């Protein structure tokens, strides 16, 4: 039994150690090189991180504002419609992100919408399913009795929404936000397609990569990775302490 367990455990673990842990270690080593440290000491780098951070914050907020009504509507439909609508929401994100972004570019270029606003629009359009799905699953679990109780006790629909619905769906809100925020932080190719001048951290990493400056590229990637890990860890802790599941 023990031998069988080990023969199952070892191959994937070995693979992940060699091709996930080791690359990360090498990334860290090349980040702490002369080129890497030079890139990190450069004020422009932090300006880029700052910009990427804000674009990710705004995109996540817009995504949430757009997705909540949609998820709420879907959760209130009959099971047949519910499945159909969920399927329609999820279907695009099973297709190529580059193709979807190109399709959007194809429509936005002729009408001349190519500024940073268009980049945010494209991000929201692409990452919407990541927000709608977790929101839907927590809205769907909402006990109708509590909503009725709130209204019976004289709360207006708006008050019921803010005092009952939103707090109870917080797990979905948190999950959706983290699922959108993290990939958007490192988004690459999408901004280049929509507006070349909206340079985010991903584009800069690509620039260094193209120049063969592995040290600087690794340094920026490492910072991005640390951001990701810290966010995921905070989220996991929050989930535990608040009972958000």
């Amino acid at each position, binding site marked *: 039994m023990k031998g*069988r*367990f080990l023969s*199952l*455990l070892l*191959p*994937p*673990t070995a*693979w*992940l150690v060699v*091709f*996930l*842990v080791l*690359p990360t270690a*090498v*990334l860290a080593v*090349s980040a702490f090189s002369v080129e890497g440290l030079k890139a990190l000491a450069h004020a422009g780098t932090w300006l880029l991180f700052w910009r990427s951070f804000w674009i990710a914050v705004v995109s996540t907020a817009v995504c949430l504002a*757009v997705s909540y*009504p*949609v998820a*709420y*509507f879907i959760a209130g439909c009959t099971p047949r419609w519910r499945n159909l*609508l969920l399927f329609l*929401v*999820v*279907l*695009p*994100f*099973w*297709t*190529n*992100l*580059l*193709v*979807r972004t*190109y*399709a*959007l570019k*194809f*429509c936005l270029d*002729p009408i001349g919408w190519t500024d940073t606003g268009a980049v945010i629009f494209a991000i929201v359009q692409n990452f*919407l*399913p*990541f927000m709608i*799905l977790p929101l839907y699953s927590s809205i769907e679990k909402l006990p109708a009795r509590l909503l009725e109780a709130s209204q019976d006790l004289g709360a207006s*629909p708006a008050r019921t929404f803010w005092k009952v619905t939103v707090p109870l769906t917080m797990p979905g809100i948190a999950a959706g936000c983290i699922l959108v925020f*993290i*990939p958007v932080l490192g988004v*690459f*190719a999408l901004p*280049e*397609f929509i507006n070349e001048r909206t340079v985010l951290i*991903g584009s800069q990493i690509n620039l260094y*990569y193209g120049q063969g400056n*592995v040290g600087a590229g*690794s340094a920026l*990637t490492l910072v*991005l*990775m640390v951001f*990701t*890990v810290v966010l995921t860890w905070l989220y996991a802790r929050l989930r535990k302490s608040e009972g958000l599941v």
Partner: protein
Amino acid sequence: MRKLLGGFTGLVLVALYAPIVVMILFSFNESKYSVKWTGFTLDWYRQLAGNEKIHKDLLNTLKISGASTVLATLLGTMAAMAGRSAFRGKRLYTTLVALPVMVPDIVLGMAMYSLFHFIDVHVVRLPLSLGTAVVAHTTFNLAYVAVVVSARLQGLDRSIELAAQDLGATPLRAFWKVTLPAILPGVVSGAVLAFTLSFDDFVITYFTTGPGNGTLPMRIYSLVRFAVTPEINAISTVILAASLVLIAGALRFSRVPVAGGGR
């Protein structure tokens, strides 16, 4: 209120689908430069069919997705099965397996590249190739397969396997005759998911494949940066159609992974 919400949902769906529909329509447009409709043609598809570069891209895409799907399905299924037992360091193990799903693609791509680059410079000549891309794809696909198969394993009653062994089956025989048939839908949909993600991937391939070993998504990336042409619309439509066929395949085998994916 419901009507308002319904109208809004409809609007969001239009925003999701309209660009794709417009792009597909214009892959049949005669004019090369105009964004106005000038007439129906299949020329762009004919050009694709005769374009050797595109053939090579497609072949590379299939080679990378195929090889990494086989490897990842094997390793991912093993990872999921090992994850059923309780052992020391299990939390670390679970985090490790799920990590490629969590970090942004560019982080994984760049980390892989820095490993290959390091080996190339300090250990042994290792230029980027299809092989390095397969390795990188296997790492992220492994995670997705493990997630899907784990979900399937959770619904499996372990006592059936133990019963098979009590009745004299070797562990290997019990696996082939009892466990595998029970989790097969999960394994197959994990494999289809892996293939789809690989087929569609741009970022990780971009950082890990060698020059002259480009894939279809990489072709789109380099073409779009020159100019928008109906030819790109046609390639995109073909990729889209391939993804849809794969999804249909995945849905036939299992209803589990609809909520997964996203690359």
